């Protein structure tokens, strides 16, 4: 096992697994507790438009996708506040519009489109050095931001209106956070793909939430759970030669099932002993 570490693609993918866990652990907790899962799905798919345009204009698709994702995230945030359009319809439109743009640009791009499948289904083994650096930078930004502004983020996420009555710059904070959500989504597309990235942002959090009702602990637990899930998936995909993205999500879902069962059995047995004590 150790000799495979010599290959840079293995080190890259291990580093990517590590940074994916950090970024998704933090941002996913924010998304899940704020009930923004659908919005995040919309941003993810909208970014495909950016990938298509990146191919067409010969740019790195990650950069064009990032621009696309941030603009659409800011757009939804802005629209849902100013106008009376229902937010979920806006997201639905954005979702398919981004995909449509992506398909059109890929179709009109002359010749062969390399690595398209990487973006759709993810491939942690093809993560480049640049991708790893970008993920490292994002991890550092997220850790600093969520450490220094932890209480502010928590209080605003919990009750925006209350924070507004205390003259907190809620809108500014929301715009910053939604941009970080968009960046996290885009940088993790390489790891599990557009279609699966949302599960990396929600399954670890759902598992963590079974055992903790504390925002900070959910973040920390999610990071650990993601890391274990991603590594398990990686080993699976290596051993039985299946796509890594799908293998990662598959292991996470299995973990979720196991965790749910454990939690149910645990809480039942605690209840039983308590009832026993009362009866004695």
């Amino acid at each position, binding site marked *: 096992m150790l000799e495979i570490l010599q290959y840079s693609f293995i080190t890259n993918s291990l580093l990517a697994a590590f940074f994916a866990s950090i970024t998704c652990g933090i941002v996913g907790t924010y998304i899940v507790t704020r009930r923004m899962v659908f919005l995040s799905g919309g941003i993810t798919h909208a970014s495909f438009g950016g990938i298509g345009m990146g191919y067409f204009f010969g740019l790195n698709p990650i950069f064009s996708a990032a621009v696309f994702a941030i603009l659409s995230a800011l757009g939804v945030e802005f629209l849902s506040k100013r106008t009376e359009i229902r937010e979920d319809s806006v997201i639905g439109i954005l979702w398919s519009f981004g995909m449509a743009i992506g398909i059109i640009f890929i179709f009109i791009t002359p010749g062969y489109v390399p690595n398209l499948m990487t973006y759709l289904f993810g491939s942690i083994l093809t993560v480049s050095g640049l991708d790893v650096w970008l993920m490292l930078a994002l991890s550092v930004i997220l850790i600093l931001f969520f450490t220094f502004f932890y209480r*502010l983020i928590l209080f605003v996420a919990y009750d925006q209106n209350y924070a507004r009555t205390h003259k907190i710059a809620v809108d500014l904070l929301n715009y910053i956070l939604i941009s970080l959500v968009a960046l996290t989504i885009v940088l993790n597309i390489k790891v599990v793909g557009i279609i699966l990235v949302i599960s990396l942002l929600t399954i670890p959090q759902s598992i963590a939430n079974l055992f903790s009702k504390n925002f900070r602990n959910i973040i920390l637990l999610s990071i650990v759970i993601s890391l274990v899930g991603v590594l398990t998936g990686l080993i699976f995909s290596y051993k039985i030669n299946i796509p890594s993205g799908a293998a990662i999500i598959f292991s996470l879902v299995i973990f979720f099932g196991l965790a749910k069962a454990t939690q149910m059995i645990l809480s039942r047995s605690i209840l039983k002993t308590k009832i026993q004590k009362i009866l004695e």
Partner: protein
Amino acid sequence: MSKIVELKSVFAGYNNDVILNDVSFEIYDDDFIGIIGPNGGGKTTLLNVILGLIKPIKGSIEFFGDTENKNNKIGYLPQINQIDKKFPISVCDVVLSGLIYSSGIFYKHSKEDRIKVRETLEKLGICDLQNKPIGELSGGQMQKVLLARAIVSSPRLLILDEPNTFVDNKFEGELYEILVHLNKEMAIIIVSHDIGTISTYIKTIACVNRGLHYHKSNKISEQQLASYNCPIKLITHGEVPHTVLKTHNHILS
């Protein structure tokens, strides 16, 4: 007695609906105002205007600084249906969030803040709940926590939107006693559907049904309510004087 807020012919609403129609209203330092009115009458909307959560379409709202104490804080208890109970946050943190005013830019809380939280929880008799996640609270317990958050900063104006929902009789009585006590230091606005119970504690009544009629007394009759375009039933609890039809000298503002 100094003025805190003044609304001048405010029109406010959502989408294409005008909910508040030409509302003029003043709140002073020692006020204890009960806001009553039918469901959908615009009580919460009025509070949102005062809180700055909704901008008036027309008219103005002006705050007057407290030159003496420099305390211009507002404490707010939202109607319970506006709270996400699944959010992973503990009681202690919810109450701490009532103090984000006083913290610096990075919002780390000081020792004094923690002591204030502790004292407030003690005052409301919910110290044992402090480490519980809010998802595990009953409706009444949640109300107490929200009340704690509203008063922890010792605000100048306390705004309560139906704080008695889900609360048991015993605590409801205690709640009003606490409010009467707090009223010595702050102005209070309370929305309630139970005018019968609150009338002995409040000083004045504002009837809100699209418009606002200010009744500068804590006694009101059904006839008066009807004349204010505010058709709600007075629920009586034992011998309460306000059901007796008397004429009150009230001033409409």
